[in-house]
């Protein structure tokens, strides 16, 4: 049975799980933590750091430490979300060759999928260490509200990390799977997922035969814990400015320290009524005088600062219920997901809105990865009787004359599905028509996400409105969109499979996969070399320590003197190899070192 892992690629933290003996299990990382920070850094020495170590050095290396890359994945550089991220990030975001956003670290430009790939690779390594074997397949989760470009970019990130992403599923859906798996219940469930960077609400029906049917899903890709942190940072910065007249935002290192402190304070306020933010030597006054930031923040203050954020999530819940034509009373269970749902005010608001207390049985940080692992196992192994009926999160359609967007497959349509509609030409003697495939809910085409385009040519010349073109959209279970356009009069057809653009060309992607694979091999190799080197050093030290004793014991015999001479030569060569870092040479001397050490140990033991 092939192994498949489930990865929750979060904005702030990531988590990996696997199905073991029929039960989903979260895999802890080397440090014993069940979640790993979604952070990547490049050190001065050019070394890549991922996870906890990247987070630990973030303060001193803010400009080269990437956090919340998920907010940028699959987005255009010109999008307001990227603009927003540029304003709040300590690292540099630049425009890529395909109008995508890229990240500059120590002079090298990385695509966002490459950064995400580093995190995914870390998760893969965690799983491989735990399972003791290679892992090639994964189910990766994304916010329900991700569009196809963002999903494709996430898939690409998986490919760069050497993972075959067999399915992308929505985070709230994954949470519902984890909640309902193996429970044999029939319920309508709302999943409220307020994570580090995104907010999602999904309504699912858990039915007989292990069917999980998504009824509706909605959300906001720029509303999450980071926004709560930003409110605290603003509050701290403004207070500091009015006191000292200095804008802390200008100092990247100060900003990073503020960020950490804000997140810490926010978490603490989930369990305590008030906490102190204490940042000594935050900045220099300019008169060579160090300034400190010290301020008490209460839970009430935090709630006031973030009231509108919580209200926004409730508004989205209301809208989603309305779209699904459901009443609050139809929701039989509420599952809370994401670290932000630890905040008491969030729980209160949700309970108040739905009129019932949310379910407490699931771990908000782990449930998504568990669900991904369940879906992976259900896909690869038919003995799990479970099937997920997912929906399209966005309306799919085409751009028509005048820049108007015409939806063909409405959002929240269960996939697989297909729809067709007939369009006509908009100009006289128009012989070709460009079909722009878009995704989104806006009436104006430009507000939506462009997924792909193709041209239907050789239309007969006619006055406008005469030529009829039938456009058929099809989405299969893998979420792949195909579009077929047909001239109804001539029967001429043209079809494309819409591959969402992640901001990477196939060639770029291939290069990245290759180089990442190379790096992975290097990493494995260097880990091995490092091990050998350490072993060699240990042996050299041991021999060194025993040398005087042994020399003394065997000094009486010629044979002994000869042996110690030989040992001295071996030691010298091995030391030279270690200091040069010549791996081949170290390996060559390992056997001799081992033999010498054994011999020395034997001599000492015999005489003592």
């Amino acid at each position, binding site marked *: 049975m092939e192994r498949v892992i489930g990865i929750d690629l979060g904005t702030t933290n990531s988590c990996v799980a696997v199905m073991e003996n029929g039960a989903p299990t979260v895999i802890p990382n080397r440090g014993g933590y069940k979640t790993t920070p979604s952070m990547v850094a490049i050190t001065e020495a050019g070394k890549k750091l991922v996870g906890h170590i990247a987070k630990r050095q973030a303060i001193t290396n803010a400009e080269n430490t990437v956090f919340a890359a998920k907010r940028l994945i699959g987005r255009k550089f010109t999008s307001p979300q990227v603009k927003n991220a540029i304003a709040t990030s300590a690292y540099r975001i630049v425009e890529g060759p395909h109008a995508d956003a890229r990240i500059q670290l120590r002079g090298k430009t990385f695509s966002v999928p490459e950064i995400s790939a580093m995190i995914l690779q870390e998760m893969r390594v965690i799983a491989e260490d735990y399972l003791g074997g290679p892992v090639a397949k994964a189910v990766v989760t994304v916010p329900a509200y991700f569009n196809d470009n963002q999903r494709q970019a996430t898939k690409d990130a998986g490919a760069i990390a050497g993972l075959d992403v067999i399915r992308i599923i929505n985070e709230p859906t994954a949470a519902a799977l984890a909640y309902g798996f193996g429970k044999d219940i029939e319920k309508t469930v709302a999943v409220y997922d307020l994570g580090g960077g995104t907010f999602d609400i999904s309504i699912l*029906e858990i039915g*007989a035969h292990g069917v999980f049917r998504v009824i509706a899903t909605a959300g906001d890709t720029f509303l999450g814990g980071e926004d709560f942190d930003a409110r605290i940072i603003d509050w701290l910065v403004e207070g500091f400015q009015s006191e000292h007249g200095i804008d802390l935002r200008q100092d990247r290192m100060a900003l990073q320290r503020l960020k950490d402190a804000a997140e810490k304070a926010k978490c603490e306020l989930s369990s305590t009524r008030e906490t102190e933010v204490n940042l000594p030597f935050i900045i220099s006054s300019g008169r060579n005088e160090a300034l400190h930031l010290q301020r008490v923040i209460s839970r009430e203050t935090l709630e006031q600062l973030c009231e509108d954020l919580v209200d926004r999530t409730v508004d989205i819940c209301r809208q989603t219920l309305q779209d699904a034509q459901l009443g609050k009373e139809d929701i039989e269970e509420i599952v809370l997901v994401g670290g932000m749902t630890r905040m008491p005010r969030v729980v209160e608001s949700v309970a108040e809105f739905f009129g019932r207390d949310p379910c407490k049985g699931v771990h908000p940080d782990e449930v998504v990865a568990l669900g991904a692992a369940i879906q992976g196992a259900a896909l690869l192994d038919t003995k799990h009787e479970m*099937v997920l*009926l997912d929906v399209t999160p966005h309306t799919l359609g085409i751009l028509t004359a005048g820049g108007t967007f015409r939806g063909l497959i409405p959002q929240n349509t269960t996939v697989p*599905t297909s729809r067709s509609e007939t369009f006509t030409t908009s100009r006289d003697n128009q012989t070709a028509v460009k079909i722009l495939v878009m995704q989104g809910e806006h009436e104006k085409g430009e507000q939506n996400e462009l997924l792909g385009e193709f041209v239907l040519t050789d239309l007969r010349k*006619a*006055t406008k409105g005469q030529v009829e073109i039938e456009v058929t959209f099809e989405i299969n*279970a893998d979420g792949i969109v195909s579009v077929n356009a047909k001239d109804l009069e001539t029967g001429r057809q043209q079809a494309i499979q819409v591959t969402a653009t992640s901001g990477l060309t196939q060639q770029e992607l291939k290069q990245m996969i290759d180089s990442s694979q190379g790096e992975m091999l290097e990493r494995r190799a260097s880990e091995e070399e490092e091990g050998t080197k350490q072993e060699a050093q240990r042996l050299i030290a041991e021999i060194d320590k025993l040398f005087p004793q042994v020399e003394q014991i065997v000094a009486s015999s010629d044979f002994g003197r000869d042996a110690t001479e030989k040992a001295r030569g071996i030691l010298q060569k091995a030391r030279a190899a270690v200091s040069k870092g010549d791996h081949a040479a170290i390996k060559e001397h390992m056997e001799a070192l081992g033999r010498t050490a054994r011999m020395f140990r034997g001599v000492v033991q015999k005489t003592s």
Partner: protein
Amino acid sequence: MAAFDEPTTVPKPVAGFDPARAAIGPLERLVLSSVDGLASVAEVAAASGLDAGDVCTVLGRLAELGALEPATPSPVTEPAPPPPDPTTAAPAAPSGGGWDRALLDEPGDLDLDVRNMVLDLFHALDEFDHYQLLGVARDADRKAIKSAYYGLAARLHTDRYFGKNLGSFKSKMEAVFGRITVAHDTLAAKQRRAEYDEYLKDRDRSRAYEKLLQWATVDSASPTPMPRAAATPAQPRILPPPPPSRAVPPAPPPSRAGGLLDRALQPSQASPRAPVAPVPPAAPAAPAAPPSEPKLVAPAGPVPLSPEQERARRLAAAQRLAGNRVSAARMVAANPSAPRIAAPTAEATRAATETLKVRYQDSVEAARRATIKRLVDGADEAISKEDFVTAANHLRVALTHADEAELRAKYESVNLKAREILADTYLKQAAYEESQEKWREAGATYAKAADARPGDPNIAAKAANAMRRDGRDLHAAARFGEVAVQKNPASAEFRVTLGLVYFDAGLLLRAKSELEQAVRLAPDDSKAKELLVRVKSAIG
């Protein structure tokens, strides 16, 4: 009994089987009486007025008793899903569709039963309504609908076979899944279900009326007053057309109302058959003794029966069903055409026989009157609900019992109203189909509407247009287009429609002529001009 499940199987009687010696009840007798070696299971069911399922069971039992040859599957390959009865909508379990069986052997990882299920459903997509697709009754509650959908989804979603080789089944499964999802989404939402039910009701009503029209036509054309129960052309997919040697007029399906006796008395329920062979009368001391040779005689085609024969047959049927043994003497007495055998009985016995005969005739007549009354009452009730189709249906059946002037006049007037309503229903139905871009269905429904209201060129033009869009029967499209133009030669629009049909059919010269006329009639119509230019350039 499994083999009798196939509606096209023909049960064959075993020669020399003696029903009297076997432990068979009236039900078995009734079914056996309809088995003549030529009627299929479905026809036997129709003739006996019993539920098809019951008939299968009874036939199975008869086969066990040796009355019938063991069933062999019918050689006729019939592209039929099981008969969907639109009025009761029994959950449909499709089987043995008209698809290519070779697909079952296509290389791939799917189990055979899943393949069967996918193919059955896939090939029934056009045929089945949402309820049949999900296999639920029309009055199924939301929970039952959901459960049915989930059951199907759990088996038919391609994710259940992720990474498996599904071959040509993948796209079929996706198509089926899409449709069952639409069915579920429609039926699980109150408003949408109500709309859909309304549409189905319209469709059922027009279908019922189609049948009615068919019988009416048959009625006037056929010399026999009792059409045999058989497939109606209106439902060619449901029952196979009878073999040519037994070409019989279609008949209404048996009424579900009434007891067995009542049904047996209705002339349309039994097969025409040569009279039972005369047998020597049994001694009156042993009235329960059966005819010694109850051999079934195969009919030689649709022979009209003389009134006497008819009466005798009815009487016999009534007796059989009442569980009594028919005295051969009485049967013979009631059948003057049969050779009389001198009865060595006393005058008293003869008087008693006469009395009995009169009593039977009275009861037959009473039952007939009761039936007519019931039908007329039913018709009146339907009229009060403005359900003229049902009313006409009832009255037509009543007419088969007694062709009285008053009844006929009533029938004609109701029939007229029903026709009117039907045309409206068709138009509504066709508009719905058009909106769903179901061109094939829309074309067929417009065609029916045009038949029901032959004077309306608009309907004919719509039929022509829908058929053109469907593209499957351009001949029919041209016929309707021509009708529209003929009825209203001054309409440029109709001529453009017809021109387009001709164009699609490759009849360029005709297309040109129509379009020229259209341009002449409406010089401002850019579409017509446009098309004309195109046609001319196509001609070269």
